[in-house]
């Protein structure tokens, strides 16, 4: 049910980001059309996480523009001047963008279902009954209905990550960002998380996925971008790019991950 629209879900133009004197992103251009899955790969420290964090405005940017669903992130454009958005507006912009972290970051003082209810209750002002009903449904969807009352420390890594995905989905996002969602998992737990992500992609969710799982990229990705040294070095259809990488550094990188 991919609806093709002229304006992509994510539009990134000439994005630059520096930490102190180190420029981490050096001019990124990227489109993520509605309903598509873009996989971002690259060596450690190449700026993949930073790129994702610029999309939901967890990081400020130094130049360039990021639009999500047609809305400029972080600024209001009035005349030819940019005005920083007030914090409340940034929160509003972030709300429909889900983010899943390498290290899950579930709230340890809340049970699985309370984690999933947290966003709707606190941010959207949903009633607890309504949030609980929706959270139960979502836990069902990620296959953890029977773990609803467990605390994160009582769950395996794979289960925690699936709860974290459910927690993001509870905000009814239009875009999901995944930052190496399976990198902290034992090998036998990776597939259960990828399965959930595969379902999500099949349901038409727009996704940006930083990953080292080339199998997943090949199977689910609509686009693959290779980031190295803060620039996109190679991009294209995952099946084609992975079968015949053009760039030397990309080829070396693939040799290391595969």
């Amino acid at each position, binding site marked *: 049910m991919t609806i093709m629209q002229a304006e992509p879900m994510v539009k990134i133009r000439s994005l630059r980001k520096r930490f102190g004197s180190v420029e981490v992103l050096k001019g990124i251009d990227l489109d993520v059309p509605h309903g598509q899955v873009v996989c971002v790969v690259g060596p450690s420290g190449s700026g993949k996480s930073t790129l994702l964090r610029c999309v939901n405005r967890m990081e400020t940017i130094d130049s360039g523009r990021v639009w999500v669903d047609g809305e400029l992130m972080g600024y209001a454009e009035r005349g030819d001047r940019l005005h920083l958005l007030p914090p*409340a507006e940034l929160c509003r912009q972030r709300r429909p963008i889900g983010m899943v972290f390498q*290290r899950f*970051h579930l709230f*340890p003082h809340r049970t699985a279902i309370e984690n999933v209810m947290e966003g709707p209750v606190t941010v959207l002002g949903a009633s607890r009954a309504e949030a609980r009903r929706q959270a139960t449904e979502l836990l069902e969807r990620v296959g953890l209905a029977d773990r609803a009352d467990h*605390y994160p420390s009582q769950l395996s890594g794979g289960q925690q990550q699936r709860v974290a995905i459910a927690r993001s989905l509870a905000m009814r996002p239009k875009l999901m960002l995944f930052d190496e969602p399976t990198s902290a998992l034992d090998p036998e737990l990776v597939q259960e998380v990828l399965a959930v992500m595969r379902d999500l992609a099949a349901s038409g969710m727009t996704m940006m996925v930083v990953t080292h799982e080339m199998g997943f990229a090949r199977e689910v990705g609509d686009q693959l971008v290779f980031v190295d040294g803060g620039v996109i070095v190679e991009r294209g259809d995952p099946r084609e790019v992975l079968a015949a990488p053009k760039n030397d550094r990309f080829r070396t990188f693939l040799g290391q991950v595969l």
Partner: protein
Amino acid sequence: MEVTPTGQMPTGGSPVELPINAVRPPRPGRLIGAAVALFFMVWLAYTVIVNENLHWDVIVSFLMDGRILGGLWVTIQLTVFSMAIGLVLGVLAAVMQLSDNPVLRGTSGLYTWFFRGTPLLVQLIFWFNIGLVFPNFGIGVPFDGPKLIEWQANELITPFTAALLGLAINEGAYMAEIVRAGIRSVDPGQREAAEALGMSHRQVLIRVVLPQAMRVIIPPTGNQFISMLKTTSMVSVIAGAELLTVAQRIYLGNFEVIAMLIVASIWYVVLTTIASIGQHFIEKRFERGHAALGARVRRNLRPFAKEPA
């Protein structure tokens, strides 16, 4: 070595697989040390009990004296209120200290610097005599503008309010450090996860950061509370009507100095004991979600801990 599915050791194996039941080497030093300590304790208890100068009958008769119980009640009130206000001040100061705003950071830094840098005794006497500096208080336009309501300092500042001001504001400066350490102990990833859900700074703090910081904040706060039960006795310098002041007033009349001090001490020990028990239960409550791991490990190890059948 094979282990059956229930995790039990196969029986009748070689002696190497049997549980260890070894003889301990003799440790005469420990025995002698224990004997000396025991002897000393018994001797101390004996001399205290038979000592006629301690007037045990007086101590017993004053333990439930109305004035003493009144002082006890004031001590409890002072402790609870000044800790509560101190905690609120501490959270405020800690949040200000960790904010991006340099003015807020500076204000908070000045507060903790000043009130931790001057003796509590001096602060108490200062608050009690604040009328000498500011004879009138009012609500209205700042910088000597017209006032809507005005009070005389001498009416407002009773020994109790002066004590409360002094203890609470001083406590807030110490609580600020404790709360700050608690907030910093929370994984930054927690803040990020909460922000990614679209929570405001305030929501992140109240829903995610502070509840987790509690685990680190509560044990030292319990210590502060217990310490505060006894620190209230300093209020006796401004005649605060708490336990020690009352005990002093009584012994100025009947000259039973030691007996009255023992009466007060007994109540302080009772209070701190109750507080310690309370602290234990509150700490358990805030271990939620963290103790679970230990419980799970124990549960999983249980089959292996069984004796061979």
